[in-house]
């Protein structure tokens, strides 16, 4: 907020993506999400499975399933609203200015072309390079993401690679065009920790060199603590809390964030039963009115039937909860 406007590479304002099911019901999967990303910054997008992280990030590029629609909002990228761009223009933004590491590599790679063909094609599409040069870049990228014998792997088809190699091939493709903004959706789920460390280091290096910004979607809070400067926490299609990294871990104020942090399994000791957040995630067709965390929340009161207003509770720390003050004092209501 104290930063001048133009430092933001990306501003997402009140974006809404709704799906329509067979019965014509409206599923408000993403319902008024806002956040911004500064140049060279990494923000982490975290939240329960199904809360709308992937749909939000794909909507930035106008990539929405045919059953869904972007029904509102703005996506200001370097001063321009991407949602107003025609498809032809959008195609030059995708991959070049904004690259994506998709959550499921198998769905993003084409099974009938070799890894090499796919990476080289992406490079030639966005950069003025000959086939030979592009092949050289592709080989080097595969080496950088830790794939042994990259020369051989270029000739392999996706099904011939292990899960983690497919993921790395996609990372190589995304990074090969030196994007300004990288959307990394669960980029390291299939990678062991040593390779993961190497990939995260590579992303950090490119950030330093190119001023690349990153939207990092991950369930691994260890990576969040390691990589991001700011954290945006989503729940049921809405942002519930946003703060700097240390603040989120040290001083979380939304009851959902607190539940999330409590559920982290420990490496340093054994637990007989793992912590969970009680209750189930509501279905988008039947979100509770008012605060969507109602029914699972330890601080809930009748006031919560109204939508909680976003409150700025400190330096860059935004929370959407009626009872954040009680949360801060650790007073749970005796409902459970």
């Amino acid at each position, binding site marked *: 907020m104290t930063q001048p406007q133009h430092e933001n590479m990306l501003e997402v304002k009140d974006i809404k993506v709704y799906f329509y099911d067979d019965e014509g019901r409206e599923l408000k999967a993403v319902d008024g999400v806002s956040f911004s990303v500064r140049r060279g910054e990494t923000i982490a997008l975290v939240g329960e499975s199904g809360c709308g992280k992937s749909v939000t990030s794909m909507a930035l590029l106008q990539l929405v399933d045919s059953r869904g629609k972007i029904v509102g909002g703005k996506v200001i990228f370097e001063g321009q609203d991407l949602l107003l761009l025609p498809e032809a223009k959008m195609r030059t933004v995708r991959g070049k200015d904004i690259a994506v590491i998709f959550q499921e590599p198998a769905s993003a790679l084409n099974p009938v072309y070799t890894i090499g063909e796919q990476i080289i094609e992406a490079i030639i599409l966005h950069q003025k390079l000959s086939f030979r040069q592009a092949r050289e870049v592709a080989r080097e990228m595969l080496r950088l993401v830790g794939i042994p014998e990259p020369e051989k792997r270029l*000739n392999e088809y996706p099904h011939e690679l292990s899960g983690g190699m497919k993921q790395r091939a996609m990372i190589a493709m995304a990074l090969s065009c030196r994007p300004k903004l990288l959307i990394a959706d*669960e980029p390291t789920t*299939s990678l062991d920790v040593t*390779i993961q460390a190497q990939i995260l280091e590579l992303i950090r290096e490119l950030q330093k060199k190119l001023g690349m910004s990153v939207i990092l979607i991950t369930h691994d809070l260890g990576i969040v603590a390691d990589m991001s400067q700011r954290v945006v926490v989503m729940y049921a299609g809405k942002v519930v809390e946003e703060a700097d990294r240390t603040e989120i871990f040290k001083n979380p104020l939304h009851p959902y964030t607190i539940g999330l942090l409590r559920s982290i399994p420990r490496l340093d000791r054994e637990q007989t039963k793992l912590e969970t957040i009680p209750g189930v995630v509501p279905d988008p067709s039947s979100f509770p009115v008012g605060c969507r965390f109602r029914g699972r929340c330890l601080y809930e009161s009748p006031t919560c039937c109204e939508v909680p207003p976003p409150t700025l509770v400190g330096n860059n720390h935004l929370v959407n909860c009626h009872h954040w003050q009680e949360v801060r004092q650790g007073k749970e209501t005796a409902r459970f």
Partner: protein
Amino acid sequence: MSNSVILKVEHLKKYFPIKAGVFRKIVGWVKAVDDVSFEVLEGETLGIVGESGCGKSTLGMTILRLYEPTAGRVVFAGKEISRLSSSALRPIRKDMQMIFQDPFGSLNPRMRIGSIIEEGMSVHGLYSSTERKEKVRELLEKVGLSADYVNRYPHEFSGGQRQRIGIARAMALSPRLIIADEAVSSLDVSIRSQILNLMKELKREYSFTYLFISHDLAVVRQICDRVLVMYLGRIVEIADKKVIFSRPLHPYTVALISAVPVPDPDYVVDRVILHGDVPSPIHPPSGCYFAPRCPVAERCRKDEPPLVEVENGHWVACHLPGSLSLKRENGDKKC
């Protein structure tokens, strides 16, 4: 956990041909699984960890005969299944299920998820049609999804939701052995804990046996009884979970455990960073496969270290076991 061995893997090998040129001639072999032997007790959870590409998924698929083994034997519940015909294998299939690493590719995009979960039960003639429908709804709720989702198609779900559909499908048949390949990698910590608690419950109640393939060592620590560490198609260490996390002996295991990121911005760990190129299963190095990257290697590039039992139930393949040890401290934590 009982004392009866439910799964026995002996000298299992799976090699994939490497093809090149227009005629796709075979020019070499990827030794994805290279002479692997181990046993699993009924009701036990065995964790399988190791570098990306080291052969974990291939091992799982070869055990289930989704890939034909190049050599070796697999004995499941006293029956050698590595040579059974596919019709003789069919009834046994019900007892061995896999949760696939890639949920997107393993779910038929044209089927509604209700039918996907029900399919196995109808193929094996289990329950009446109404019972099956009821069971599907029950399973969906157990994995934290709404029972009303039965008529939706796979692409209408988030990544983590699809992963849970795969889990529900595997559990539908109440198998004796489940091979879970990165089964919870796309789930947030709370739902993941819910699923892991469910797995533990099934294990307690019905003595389910799991082979649990995962990169997430914190999860492995919470759910497994023993851990098997693979490197480049081979086993480098097997031990009780407690032992692996407190006194790992193979330098690769030590490096692996020390590299786990910790969800605490103040946490300082003494990471063992591995240098050198990751070797390839196409041209494995001589001697110990880990030697080119091992911080303590000496003569290890010459002789291949055999897998030996160094103490009760703790097997290691290393010439210098224990010469790299785990350092982990809580940095300058201020509070």
